[in-house]
């Protein structure tokens, strides 16, 4: 007992063996253990206290000293120990239990993992492996394909599955089975950059995290993370963002040379026009109501037409004029044959008939008469062979020079060299006589807008004009007024634009602007003249250089140059909703009275531009977008991706079974 003075004696207190996995079963009944102890397998160590020894014909007790030494009774006659007791059921030690529990826990976990991971259909497997619900955007279309929709190894056999553990992930490739971009999916911003940072490979998972629950955004990009690539680090938009460019947002020239300063400062103030001045200022012309980044200008009819519509029809284009000749370039006989008797010739024929009648009275002059009749036949278009010799000296009806357009059409080098042009002009006029418009069409064959250049030009008119000119006569136009379109006056073929956006005029202007073979500076100057060009198009539509084509120009027909900054976004609507339409625009867009606006349209570089408006700087935005005020994170204004789209058409049926449907570009 614990109070015994000799309790520590070596023969009373054997080694305690905590490393032994079993204890005597008697301990579980709060009894004393026997001296033998359990075996290492966990069975009772023995039911007797000793194994008697047979010595000299008698059994001797061999009970150990620890169990009390030889007993008084001694062994039974058959050599068995006299102290038999019931076998106990040894109890495992606490550590043994611990080891068992641990093994059990391990086995249970392994079994549960195995049961849930490798057993059951996909839906169930998803439930166990799934680290969280998919976002609403993705949850719908995975129902058919399950995990394998994105996680390629999921459906593979165990070996491949496990192998995926140390092979690089294919998750980003999986995204590409639905998502498309204008550039490589794994390139930063889906762009090709020249700088070193552009070589870095990106993964969708860098910014997008799924399985964070139904209502969680899968994009969580903090401003600081942009600095992963962008070397210029700054705290926030309001604090350290690089300044906007000096010309922001009007980096390029506007398409229409609308001088806001001039209009607002002068014309709209002019009492003559004041009733036509825009009542709602900006939004009268600008359609801001639903605008995103670009605010469209309303149509010409709704805007400029109020004052400037009339100015379009007033400018004609002289396409062709009959030049002066030294000699008649025409084969009179051919002309007569093609055109029939001209008015003049009929008059002449009448005179001849009169003369013949006179001569018939005095028949002696038979030879002369014969000659007269021959002439008469000719005038009536019945003659054959050579034209009758005229003793008159040729006198050209026209004293005009060839217009630049005609020079281009005829492919001449010098429109003033009579000797050079006589023949081609003659041929052209003859062509007009003989085949009408085709003659002209031939000349512009292969030129840009060829189909439109002579659209609406009647062959009849050309025939008549040609016959007149070939006969060295002035064309007499019909008396009625010309509203617009093709017409001819005495010695020229002209086009008068019908309305705003007239296609023929546009075609000629485009042709002149594009330049190229045959288009002379003279022709350009004529057509692209702000004051005298056809329709005065370029008075408002800016003429721009064409990149990589030094001799070409381009007319900005359409409104507003769309910004090519793909990674910047701005939406007017929320701003206007907040600030209110009307005056709100001028919160940011402030007119600049001193800008040399008009001057910038006198040259062709669209980037050399002096806007009517002062440029917008950061501070304008920072006024609201700042610490503690309106949001100012990078992604508010910057769009990461370049042209994000979907490969498949989203239908209610989920993913189409058959791939690939035509590319559909969406938001």
């Amino acid at each position, binding site marked *: 007992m614990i109070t015994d003075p000799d*309790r520590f004696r070596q023969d009373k207190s*054997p*080694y*305690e*063996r*905590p*490393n032994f996995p079993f204890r005597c079963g008697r301990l579980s009944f709060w009894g004393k253990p026997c001296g033998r102890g359990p075996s290492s397998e966990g069975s009772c160590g023995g039911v007797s206290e000793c194994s*008697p020894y*047979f010595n000299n014909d008698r059994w001797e007790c061999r009970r150990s000293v620890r169990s009390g030494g030889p007993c008084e009774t001694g062994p039974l006659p058959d050599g068995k120990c006299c102290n038999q007791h019931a076998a106990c059921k040894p109890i495992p030690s606490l550590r043994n239990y611990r080891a068992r529990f641990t093994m059990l826990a391990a086995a249970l976990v392994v079994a549960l993992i195995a049961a849930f991971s490798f057993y059951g259909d996909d839906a169930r497997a998803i439930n166990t492996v799934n680290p969280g619900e998919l976002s609403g955007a993705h949850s719908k279309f995975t129902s058919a394909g399950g995990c394998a929709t994105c996680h390629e190894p999921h459906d593979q056999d165990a070996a491949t599955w496990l192998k995926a553990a140390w092979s690089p992930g294919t998750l980003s490739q999986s995204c590409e089975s639905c998502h498309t971009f204008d550039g490589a999916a794994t390139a930063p911003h889906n762009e090709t950059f020249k700088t070193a940072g552009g070589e870095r490979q990106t993964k969708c998972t860098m910014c997008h995290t799924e399985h964070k629950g139904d209502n969680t955004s899968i994009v969580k990009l903090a401003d600081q993370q942009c600095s992963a690539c962008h070397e210029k680090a700054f705290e926030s938009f309001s604090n350290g963002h690089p300044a906007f460019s000096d010309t922001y947002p009007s980096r390029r020239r506007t398409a229409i040379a609308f001088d806001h300063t001039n209009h607002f400062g002068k014309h709209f103030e002019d009492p003559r026009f004041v009733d036509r001045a825009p009542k709602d200022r900006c939004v009268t012309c600008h359609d801001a109501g639903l605008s995103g980044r670009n605010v469209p200008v309303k149509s010409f009819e709704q805007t400029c037409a109020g004052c400037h519509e009339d100015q379009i029809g007033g400018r004609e284009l002289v396409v062709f004029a009959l030049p002066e000749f030294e000699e008649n370039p025409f084969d009179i006989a051919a002309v007569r044959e093609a055109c029939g008797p001209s008015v003049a010739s009929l008059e002449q024929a009448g005179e001849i008939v009169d003369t013949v009648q006179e001569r018939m009275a005095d028949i002696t002059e038979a030879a002369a008469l014969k000659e007269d009749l021959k002439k008469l036949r000719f005038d009536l278009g019945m003659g054959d062979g050579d034209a009758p010799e005229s003793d008159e000296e040729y006198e050209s009806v026209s004293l005009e020079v060839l217009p630049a357009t005609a020079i281009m059409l005829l492919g001449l080098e010098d429109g003033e060299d009579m000797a050079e042009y006589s023949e081609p002009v003659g041929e052209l006029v003859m062509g007009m006589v003989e085949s009408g418009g085709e003659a002209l069409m031939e000349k512009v064959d292969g030129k840009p807008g060829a189909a439109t250049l002579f659209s609406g030009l009647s062959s009849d008119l050309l025939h008549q004009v040609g016959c007149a000119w070939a006969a060295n006569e002035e064309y007499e136009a019909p008396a009625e007024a010309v509203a617009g379109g093709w017409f001819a006056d005495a010695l020229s073929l002209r086009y008068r634009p019908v309305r705003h956006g007239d296609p023929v005029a546009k075609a000629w202007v485009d042709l002149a602007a594009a330049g190229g073979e045959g288009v002379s500076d003279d022709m350009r100057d004529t057509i692209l003249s702000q004051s005298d060009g056809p329709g005065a198009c370029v008075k408002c539509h800016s003429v721009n250089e064409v990149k990589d084509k030094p001799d070409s120009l381009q007319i900005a027909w359409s409104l507003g140059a769309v910004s090519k900054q793909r990674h910047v976004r701005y939406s007017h609507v929320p701003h206007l909703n907040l600030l209110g339409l009307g005056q709100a625009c001028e919160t940011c867009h402030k007119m600049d009275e001193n800008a040399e606006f008009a001057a910038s349209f006198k040259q062709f570089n669209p980037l050399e531009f002096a806007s009517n408006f002062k440029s917008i700087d950061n501070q304008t935005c920072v006024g609201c977008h700042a610490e503690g005020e309106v949001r100012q994170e990078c992604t508010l204004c910057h769009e990461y991706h370049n042209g994000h789209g979907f490969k498949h058409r989203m239908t209610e049926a989920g993913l189409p079974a058959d791939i690939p449907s035509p590319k559909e570009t969406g938001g």
Partner: protein
Amino acid sequence: MERPQRWSTPFGAEMTSEDVEGLLRRPDIAAIESDKFPKHTPLHGVLLNDTRIVRFRSGDIVVREGDYGNSAFLVLDGSLRVVLAPELPQSMLGRQSRRRKGFFEALSQLWTNSRVPEVRDISHYQSQGLRGGTGSANARVFLQDVPAVLDKHRTAKLEDGALFGELAALGRVPRTATIFAEQDATLLEIRWQGLRELRKYDEGWRRMIDQRYRENALKTHLQESVMFSRLDEDALQAVVDKVLFETYGSFDWNVAFQKQRQSGSAKEPGIARQGEYPDGVLMIRAGFARVSVKHGNGERTLTYLGAGDHFGLGELYTAWKNPEISDIALYTSLTALGYVDVIRVPAPVLEEHVFPFMEAPESTTMELASTPVADDAMMEWAVEERFINATRSMVIELDRCVRCDDCVRACASTHGGNPRFRRHGRTFDNIMVANACMHCADPVCMIGCPTGAIHRTVETGIVVINDLTCIGCATCANSCPYNNIAMVAIRNSDGHTITDPNTGKAIFKATKCDFCDDNPGGPACVRACPHGALSRVHFQDFNPSGAA
């Protein structure tokens, strides 16, 4: 007066009066003046009860270098050899040839350790040179090839009438040489009590023993002391010639100590008494002595002295410095804790050879008396329990120990799956001295081992038991006053107890902590304690965190 109590258990059970008569006929025994012996301890009685005649066969090892013994031998017949140089290898002496295991060898115990307790492969026991019957004190380790030993080692012959082993028997010092029987020999083994009587009552024996002691041991011993280290050869010889040596207490104090434990009465032989006149400095040569001072109605222990310590120097020095003080007296008392071997250096010797050259000794014992007694309780207890003997006692701090038994399991893992200590023991305050071998400064367990299976290792001085030569006689286990040696019944790998086929009795082996001597990294128990509660301490240096 009655005859000595010890004579009720004579040294040799087979000694007869005829044997004694035979001995008395030998000239060297006959020279003893029997009439000088008192009536209650006559020479005849001494010879009959305190000696025995033992026979050694050629090759038998009689005493081993490093062993502790409680008897001396007188050669009666035959010849013996003392091995001078080089020493015999440990394995020849029946000792374990210890080799530290490598890391992986140690690690292999992870799977080689048996789940069955105390498994032994008995085939290993065959190879050991052991004869004379297991379980009895007659078992001997013998040298299998004596000529080869004589060839390789320088030896000296011992013949009839030679006495050896008396220094170890009287002085509690290890045997200094190994002696084996060259031819079959008969020796008279005299136990320490008998030897002490012979020295006490016979002038011739005293002179012989003292002289040999002075010659062989004293000089070196004194030289090692700081006090005498300055002396030249002649001065030292003068000191050697003048010092006295005394022994106090019972040689096998452990027996008395265990009895006293049971009965509760303690009687320590006094060496010097507080207030007495000091006639010399007492140097402790072996054993322990308590320094105490009167406190209230009891004695308060101030400190204890072990081998190499001295007593009374301060007082004598003061007296020498201040000759005007006439009534010089000891400040403290000195009593023997068990057995103490003392050298008394007389005051005149000190005054002549020592004091002139030394600085005033620092007096520490009196300072100890000024502290509150509670501070000393721990030391008082350690002295009381004789833990002062420990050089590596296992001390467990009970307020930190979570009783996880990791220490015991670690012990088992390094000892073939068997623990080698029991995690219980005497407690004091928050500390417990567990029943693990303390590797005593004075290893009484080693006295009387017939085969030398229990021994100190040469390299580390750790007390180990060679399982191969242990015959299970339990002498050591019974001697250990701390109950730190346990006898275990060995089993085969099936779990069956191995028995002696001749008697049907289980075969036992003595087991104890070996301080993981053959394992890398020191004692596994200390390493295994996650709470730092267990430490192995030398009690002199022990300062538990709980106390103070």
